[in-house]
């Protein structure tokens, strides 16, 4: 049996809490002189990136290397993909090279799903972001960061916590994965966005929605700001950037409305001055840099739990 991590919904509550607890142990590795564990020695992890990424690719690469796996990086630029090779032929090449896990980022929603269920590869598939669909390891590292700050690192620590996710939900794979995972972990999620930036069918998500940021902020335990993804926008979703910032941006004045313990998060890349001002991003409440650090630990946990044993401990079945 072989399993994948394609969606945050693949994880049960026990699975998700196992990932968090494992990541907590992995994080302590960063304080050791030798930042290496032997768990994935002799396994090959391929990073297959069809879309640009800094954080996620480096994070997966560091995670795999710290677990002693061999890492092959494969990006669309500078490979046969730019010559017109299909996903299928690329996958068959990877299979021929004997990849144990394929970490895939693709601009098309559902590409990792296709890769996992096509029969082209026998390896585990980890979704590292597909189109506007999902980004489960980002959700896990966000949940981990909240769990460390708000949940006392205990099972069930996020039960009843209120999380506001603000901004371009429509184009955000991070928002969807976070909404699903945080619900699984018992948190209450409110999505805040202008009506034009909430997706169709949002009623079916396990979340509240609001158009009024100022009404939501005082109750939130964590506020996650999303980048406005202009590269995916073709049309007028809001009148001007300034008006968007004024209604949905997090500035010093809005930050003053937050409770004392509330943390401010951002999955990156940030556009300072648009959805978040520099003074907020650099404030004591901001855990944005910590999110990146935690990303390595969480991805180590995911790779270990998928590849470390004879069969995966977490994830959806094929």
């Amino acid at each position, binding site marked *: 049996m072989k399993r994948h991590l394609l969606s945050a919904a693949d994880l049960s509550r026990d699975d998700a809490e196992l990932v968090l607890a494992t990541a907590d142990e992995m994080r302590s590795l960063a304080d050791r002189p030798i930042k290496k564990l032997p768990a994935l020695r002799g396994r090959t992890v391929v990073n297959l990136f069809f879309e640009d990424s800094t954080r996620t690719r480096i994070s997966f690469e560091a995670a795999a290397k710290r677990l002693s796996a061999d890492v092959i990086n494969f990006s669309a630029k500078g490979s046969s993909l730019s010559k017109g090779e299909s996903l299928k032929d690329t996958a068959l090449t990877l299979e021929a090279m004997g990849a144990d896990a394929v970490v895939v980022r693709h601009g098309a929603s559902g590409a990792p799903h296709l890769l996992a269920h096509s029969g082209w590869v026998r390896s585990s598939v980890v979704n590292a972001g597909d189109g506007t669909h999902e980004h489960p390891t980002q959700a896990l590292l966000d949940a981990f960061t909240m769990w460390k700050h708000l949940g006392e690192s205990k099972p069930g620590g996020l039960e009843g916590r209120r999380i506001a996710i603000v901004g371009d939900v429509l184009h955000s794979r991070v928002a969807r994965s976070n909404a699903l995972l945080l619900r699984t972990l018992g948190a209450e999620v409110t999505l805040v966005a202008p009506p034009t930036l909430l997706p169709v069918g949002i009623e079916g998500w396990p979340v509240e929605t609001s158009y009024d940021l100022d009404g939501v902020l005082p109750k939130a335990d964590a506020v996650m700001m999303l980048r406005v993804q202009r590269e995916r926008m073709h049309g007028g979703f809001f009148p001007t950037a300034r008006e968007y910032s004024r209604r949905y941006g997090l500035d010093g004045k809005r930050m003053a409305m937050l409770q004392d313990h509330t943390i401010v998060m951002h999955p990156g890349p940030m556009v300072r001055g648009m959805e978040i001002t520099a003074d907020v991003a650099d404030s004591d409440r901001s855990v944005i840099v910590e999110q990146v650090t935690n990303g390595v630990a969480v991805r180590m946990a995911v790779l*270990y739990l998928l590849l470390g044993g004879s069969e995966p401990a977490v994830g959806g079945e094929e």
Partner: protein
Amino acid sequence: MPAHPYEESVPLSRVVLDAGDITRALTRISHEILERNKGADDLVLLGIPSRGVPLARRIAERIASVEGHDVPVGSLDITMYRDDLRLKPARALLPTEIPPGGIDGKVVVLVDDVLFSGRTIRAALDALGDIGRPTAVRLAVLVDRGHRELPIRADFVGKNLPTSLVERVKVRLLGVDDVDAVTIEGFGPQEGAR
């Protein structure tokens, strides 16, 4: 038809160490560690989770009461260093806590509940190598049940317990379990011959 004549019988269980025996064994081990080390200087006790950890803590308490000052105590998870990692589903990790002073130049005493094949200790030695370089590594176990598969032996033993391979040695400790006891479970020939 049962393959083994005792297979359908109820598992037999007998207590080989009770709470008092365990306390006395740990006190003796603590004194032996101090004697061997000529005091508590540079000692670091590392318990192997799960039940090595409370044992290490108890030994540390006794050493502290004899010497008058605390000795560093921590835990060392060996999950990712196991040689059978690939043979079973991925396991949950257990806590590793290295005391703030580290282990470089220290005498590390590994503490575990049962010494059996020796493979856990082999994994622990590998794990230690990634954390630092102690001047010496010693091994303290509550029970040595024999059947070694690697050239490893314990320096400090609570009780040598000859067992057959079909028997199971079960250690229960206050803090993790509701009682202090070491029991042998199984259908051992000595039970049948009795």
